[in-house]
């Protein structure tokens, strides 16, 4: 059970949140993107052995969708992609 930093509430237990998955690039323009790019955006997410940027929804708290960097090896919440926590 992690402690997740919510920008409004501060650190809260993971069980108050719903996992929102890794942050993808911005949604491509559906009229401009090729089929391949569209499918790639839909199905392929960053899966790093290290810090990953991801979203959580503070559904049982203030309702904020927040973004954190978390190291997938340690589960430490870190500053950014370069911080191996």
């Amino acid at each position, binding site marked *: 059970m992690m402690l997740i930093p919510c920008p409004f509430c501060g650190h809260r237990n*993971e069980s108050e949140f719903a996992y929102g998955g*890794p942050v993808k690039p911005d949604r491509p323009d559906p009229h401009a993107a090729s089929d391949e790019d569209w499918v790639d955006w839909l*199905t392929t997410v960053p*899966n790093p052995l290290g810090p990953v940027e*991801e979203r959580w929804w503070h559904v049982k708290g203030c309702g904020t969708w927040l973004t954190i960097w978390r190291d*997938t090896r340690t*589960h430490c919440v870190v500053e950014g992609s370069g911080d191996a926590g």
Partner: protein
Amino acid sequence: MQNYSIVSLLRHAINGHATWAPAWRSPPLRESYDVVVIGAGGHGLATAYYLAKEFGITDVAVLERGWLGGGNVARNTVTVRSNYMRDASIPFYVKSVALYEGLSDELNFNLMHSKRTMIDVVQTFPKMRELRRRQLTMDIYGSTYERISTEEVRRRIPALTGGGPGARLPVIGGMVHTDAGVNRHDAVAWAYARGADARGVELHQQTPVTKLLRGGDGAVKGVETPRGIVRARKVAVAVSGHTTTLTETVGLRLPLRTMNLTAFVSEPVKPLVDVVVNCPDSGFYFSQSDKGEMVIGGAPDMGQSFRRDVKQHVFEDTVTAMLSLFPSFKKLKLLRQWGGHVDITPDASPIMDETDVPGLFVTAGWWGGYKAIPAGGLTLAHLIAKGEPHPLMAPFTLNRFRHLDYVMESGTTTAR
């Protein structure tokens, strides 16, 4: 290969078992092989074995970063079954179950395969409807699934004393899958390793692959390890959660996410349950090992993770669900718990294919891949050897995502 039998055991007992040969050799690592398989887990070892046995390709090296059999094959709940829902999946798992059943003889290694039946304990009508759908589709492929009454469920699982008529989710019946069984996970890895070794495959432990290598033509040409470069025109990646870590070294992105799946065992007690018990509505399953431990699996943690750890709240959900149906387990004690990395695809079905990098094969997305080891190994070996997919693996190619043709085994159970 030294033969294993009661007779050989007797013979070796005479001199205090000092004459047993190693189960596999430790040959020097060569510079080049026909095929390199990365990962000496269940799928990697099975692939190497079938390459040698079925297709005569014996110039094979299996490279393992740690110890062989140390991946998910070492940390699962050993359930083998074929009760899937779709035409795409069922025959694959039927084949896998059949291969498992013959494996102890074939590999001369007792996997302790115990075809002991799985009973699904059903607690909601939508789930019952879904399982009935499975039943009739499975029947097309010769996989067994029979509905039984609540009374029969309780007769066959005497410890199931919860879920009565007044319960939050009362038991409404069950489904019996007589093809299901359990076996000894370590033995599966060791038996395939020994079998592959005997046919000439080389097993190299403590040999991490740090990088895949591509030739000028774009095709794979080998791998890099701290022990040196190993060349091969065909490389198969069978490393479960670390698949993307490896494929990204050649710029290949795959639709996989790595997450953590956990399991736990109770203290050993005398035989109490002789079937695999699956409670899909409550979200847990278990079987009792030959040692007497309850081996219990539950819900996954959806977050990406390369850490083998247990989420307390997820674990508690599984435990309470179990206690609601098996209240006498309250006094039973947790003995050990652990996690393993699994990688999951957008449709939660596996990927077995040659990638866009010619000569580079992957077997991945095995979320619960233990039951698939024999068929996964056999079909991947077929693809590597013949260059065309085995009919059983055809639905699981990477191609399917090009048009978002998902093979959805889950996601069918929303309540009306």
